[in-house]
């Protein structure tokens, strides 16, 4: 990393920390009431974090995936719902940056994201597709310069708060279910009729309600590349890495709380090792595994970034799938260990060592794109793909 990018990264970290402070002070209320983390999102806009990934020549800061992952982790340590909202927004921005920057409409849109700090939402799931976002039932209808789309979207995270929604569909009325495109619809170009309430165990503040989406927009807002390529070359890697960064943040905060608990006990009884100390050592190793995992994936993604063949290769897909599976499973083990360390003080709400929210939020990790679906996908590829056994990149 050269000196200038180091300064920029430091600056991003400082800005993210200021947002995290605000997010942390509202996190319990966001969770208890299942409401949108509006204070945290307003702070992100004020710190101009929503546009950091937009290239500098379009008014953003050209932040790298590693820098965005660091912001996700910092936010994840304060309010998981705010962090997940930020990560989902950045995943959508990455699709436009990677696959739309050559198209005039999408270039102008990227300028608006940075200039006006627009929050992007996503509608990739649909009733009847069995959770496989690489299939669509709905089809976009292109009529001259206009496109129309109606989608029974079972989940649109922060749908009502988003300034634009990126929606997948079949590319035309006769297209196969996997022949998909993604279209940007701006607020005002669509209506949302709520069909499902988001009342969940955790991640309550993402407000991922279900909606009947009806949109009409200029046809040039359809992303110029097939969604299959967007998914394979940027979306899945960004999603699994940035989600893992959020999850790492949740687990890191749990370990911080457990460490504070053990330290407090050690200070009370100098000369004796507190009972939770051994478990703390163990959990610090597990947390390091999640960190290594995310950092390795960031390195692999960086190395493959400009090589479409590498990005679409099975080796890369299996590696990125593995990152998602292991981080989502490990954080549950980690938070559970922390609960054992903090005991009843961790189990109770409203103590400095409370871990209930962390544990509930963390349970979403295995389900957002079900681990079983990802394992099935990897298991197919491993019928032909050989294991990468090299320790060199």
């Amino acid at each position: 990393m050269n000196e200038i990018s180091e300064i920029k990264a430091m600056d991003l970290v400082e800005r993210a920390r200021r947002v995290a402070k605000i997010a942390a002070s509202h996190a319990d209320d966001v969770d208890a009431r299942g409401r949108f983390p509006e204070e945290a999102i307003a702070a992100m806009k004020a710190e101009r974090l929503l546009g950091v990934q937009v290239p500098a020549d379009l008014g953003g800061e050209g932040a790298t995936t590693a820098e965005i992952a660091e912001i996700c982790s910092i936010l994840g340590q304060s309010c998981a719902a705010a962090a997940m909202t930020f990560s989902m927004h950045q995943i959508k921005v990455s699709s436009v940056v990677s696959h739309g920057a050559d198209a005039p409409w999408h270039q102008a849109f990227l300028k608006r994201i940075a200039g006006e700090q627009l929050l992007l939402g996503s509608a990739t799931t649909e009733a009847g597709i069995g959770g496989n976002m690489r299939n669509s039932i709905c089809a976009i209808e292109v009529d001259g310069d206009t496109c129309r789309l109606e989608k029974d979207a079972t989940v649109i995270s922060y749908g009502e708060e988003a300034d634009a929604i990126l929606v997948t569909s079949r590319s035309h009325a006769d297209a196969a279910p996997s022949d998909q495109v993604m279209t940007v619809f701006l607020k005002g170009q669509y209506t949302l009729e709520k069909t499902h309430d988001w009342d969940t165990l955790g991640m309550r503040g993402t407000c991922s309600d279900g909606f009947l989406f009806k949109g009409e927009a200029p046809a040039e807002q359809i992303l110029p590349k097939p969604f299959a390529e967007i998914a394979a070359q940027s979306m899945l890697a960004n999603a699994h890495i940035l989600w893992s960064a959020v999850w790492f943040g949740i687990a890191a905060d749990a370990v911080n709380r457990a460490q504070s608990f053990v330290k407090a006990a050690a200070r009370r009884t100098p000369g004796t090792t507190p009972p939770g100390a051994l478990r703390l050592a163990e959990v610090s190793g597990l947390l390091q595994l999640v960190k290594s995992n995310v950092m390795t994936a960031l390195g692999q993604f960086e190395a493959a970034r400009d090589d479409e063949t590498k990005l679409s290769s099975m080796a890369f897909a299996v590696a990125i799938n593995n990152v998602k599976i292991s981080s989502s499973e490990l954080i549950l083990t980690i938070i559970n260990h922390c609960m054992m360390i903090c005991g009843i003080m961790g189990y109770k709400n409203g103590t400095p060592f409370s871990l209930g929210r962390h544990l509930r939020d963390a349970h979403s990790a295995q389900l957002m794109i079900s681990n079983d679906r990802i394992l099935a996908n990897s298991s197919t590829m491993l019928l032909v793909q050989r294991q990468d056994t090299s320790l060199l990149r």
Partner: protein
Amino acid sequence: MNATIRELLAEHGSLPVSVETLANDADLYEAGLSSFASVQVMLALEEHFDIEFPDTMLNRKSFATIAAITACVATLCGDQEAAQ
């Protein structure tokens, strides 16, 4: 070789359309080839031609069209003419 590949694609590709209707350069993913089915076709090709796809060929591009598959198989079989 092209005819054999078309046969194996018809048998293992689970395509919603008939393989005969597809030109050599038609996009198979647009025609409905899933990633699961593409692996099944790969396995059938490996078995039939007694070849093994190297990691460099395990990407979307290698399986995007019948022509691309033919080129990969031909390279692996050492058939320079068909690989062109």
